[in-house]
């Protein structure tokens, strides 16, 4: 079986992942809507997953892909719990703007 990366080049995937990850970070910092922040986190997770798969192919090793499965499981769990928390915050504050969540003030 041919190594696809020979034609595309691993560095392209690295750049793509980095850009995706940074978009995620930008989203988290830029937006105040908690749902969009969640979505940004998903983008970051996907960037990492993509890099996992790229390196899995690079090393011709299935372990990288197995890790993606676990990462997905964790992401699914995280989203389920996180959205549940958001729902209950929304129920209490009628808002999911993080600027309204100042109860952590020291």
């Amino acid at each position, binding site marked *: 079986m041919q190594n696809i990366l020979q034609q595309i080049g691993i560095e392209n995937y690295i750049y793509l992942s980095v850009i995706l990850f940074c978009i995620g970070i930008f989203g988290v910092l830029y937006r105040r809507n908690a749902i969009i922040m969640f979505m940004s986190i998903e983008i970051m997770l996907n960037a990492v997953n993509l890099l996992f798969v790229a390196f899995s192919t690079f090393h011709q090793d299935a372990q990288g892909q197995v890790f993606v499965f676990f990462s997905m499981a964790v992401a699914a769990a995280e989203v389920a719990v996180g959205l549940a928390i958001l729902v209950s915050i929304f129920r209490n504050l009628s808002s999911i703007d993080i600027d309204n969540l*100042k109860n952590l*003030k*020291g």
Partner: protein
Amino acid sequence: MEKNLALVLLLAPLCGFLFNVFLGKKAGKGIVGIVGTLSILVSFVASMYFFSLIQSTGKPFQVDLFKWITLEKFNVNFSFLLDQLSVLWLMFVTGIGTLIHMYSISYMHDDENMHKFFAYLNLFVFFMITLVMGGNLLILFIGWEGVGLCSYLLIGFWYKNQDYNDAAKKAFIMNRVGDLGLLIGLFILGYLFNTLDYATLKTAILSNSDILSNPLVGIAALCLFIGATGKSAQIPLYTWLPDAMAGPTPVSALIHAATMVTAGIFMVTRMHFVFDLAPYVQDVIAVIGAATAILAASIGLVQNDIKKVLAYSTVSQLGLMFLALGFGAYEVAVFHVITHAFFKACLFLGSGSVIHGLHGEQDMRNMGGLRKAMPITFWTMMISTLAISGIFPLSGFWSKDEILMTAFHGNIVLWVVGSIASIMTAFYMFRLMYLTFFGEFRGTEEQKHHLHESPSLITIPLIILAILAAIGGLISLPGNSWLNHYLAPLLSKGEHAAHHLGTTEYVLMAVATVGALLGIGLAYSKYIKNGEVPPQDSEIKGIAKTLYNKYYVDEAYETLFVNPIYRLSHFFRNYFEVFFSEVVFAFGKIANAIAIQGKSIQNGNIGLYLFAFVLGVSSILIYLFLV
């Protein structure tokens, strides 16, 4: 079999202690007393067995339990040694201990903390047995500290009285000073010989002739002697013993007359081979012994508290014992320890009986004429008083005479001092007797109404001890001494034992007896013929005042040691502690200030947190991969 029996001997009082301390309150006073007494009786019976064993075989018996401390060259076993000396000591410790426990059942019956009292007494006996039975100096040290602890607990037994607590603390601290000396001596011996075991130490010292030139041996001997002055109440550490009379009277009898205070003499006798190498230290011991004897006796002349008189008498008698030790006459000192244990225990218990009869009255000025009300107490105390005064043929006569003879052959000045102390002893003891038992009763009407002889639990020990005080001298008659033969294998040298009964000796005996009679006569003319009663505290004048105030030694110590230490600690508290606490507080204040500033960073703005988070991750990445 013997090993188990030795353990029974050792552990029976400990079992008694554990029972009394944990179950004593529930068990009730009767059971507490019986258990306490029986546990000591078991030890006594076991001691008797070992005594007969050693009498028949003549061989010491060693019990090695386990290896305790193992360093490269330095080994200490947890071992016990039952030889002539320790068995002899065990005999009278447990024997007198049993009698005093029996006595305490009645004496302490009205005390709410009787179970505690018996627990402490049992613990004391346990530690005393440890001290005596120990096969090396370290075990001796355990016992040494343990009896010190029990002494503290028992002196302060009536802890609701602050004066008693102070007396307990004084005893503890004074003993601590001496204990430090003992410990240093122990370290030096361990450093020199790599062992603390008696037998090994003895062979190491006797086989090594170079050791004579080593000044450390002399220092070790001196340090051991300092330890002994603490425990056996010699100058300069004697002041705790008279104050220790704050404890219940059985405690004074057991600990502060018969057993614990003789631990110093036991230790010196045990380590005689070290002291024999240091003649200078022996001279020091003799001088200090004589000085203590006369100092304490002179203070005893004017004391009015019946127990204080006996306490100073004890210090004085211990001084005489050290006088004998100083001349290397260990068996003589041991002899006097034994006879003294008999008659002094009897005297203390008798005084306890008197105090009991008078419901706590201790001042002799408020006694008098008790002879008819308390005949048994009177007669037993009379026998013991005659014994301590050195009247032929009671036990004190023989033992004191041996000491004075030894002193006479060693140093005539010390003999004179010792003799004067003996005359004083006769005087103040008969002063005590006359003031207490003769003349008219000087107490209140109510006390007079309640005067009665003590119950048989109190009088039986008194009678037994009086008999022993009378015939105790038989164990070491001059010329044919059983005790000297018995101790000969241990002390090995034994040249002091050979006092040939010549003209000098008979003259000395006669002089001692005349001296004792002189003291008695003086007391008789003063207190019986003239019917004098010691004046009230405020009316004491002249030398008597100095004596009554104990030569102001306590005050001198107060000025010399206690107050400077207080001032030093005040200084440290007021300046150093303030300084250090300010420094320490400063750290807290800085942290607090930082925290107040840092609090404002944590303003609850999640956006800011995320921003900081991203920056942090970036810097970690930079640090890990790019720097």
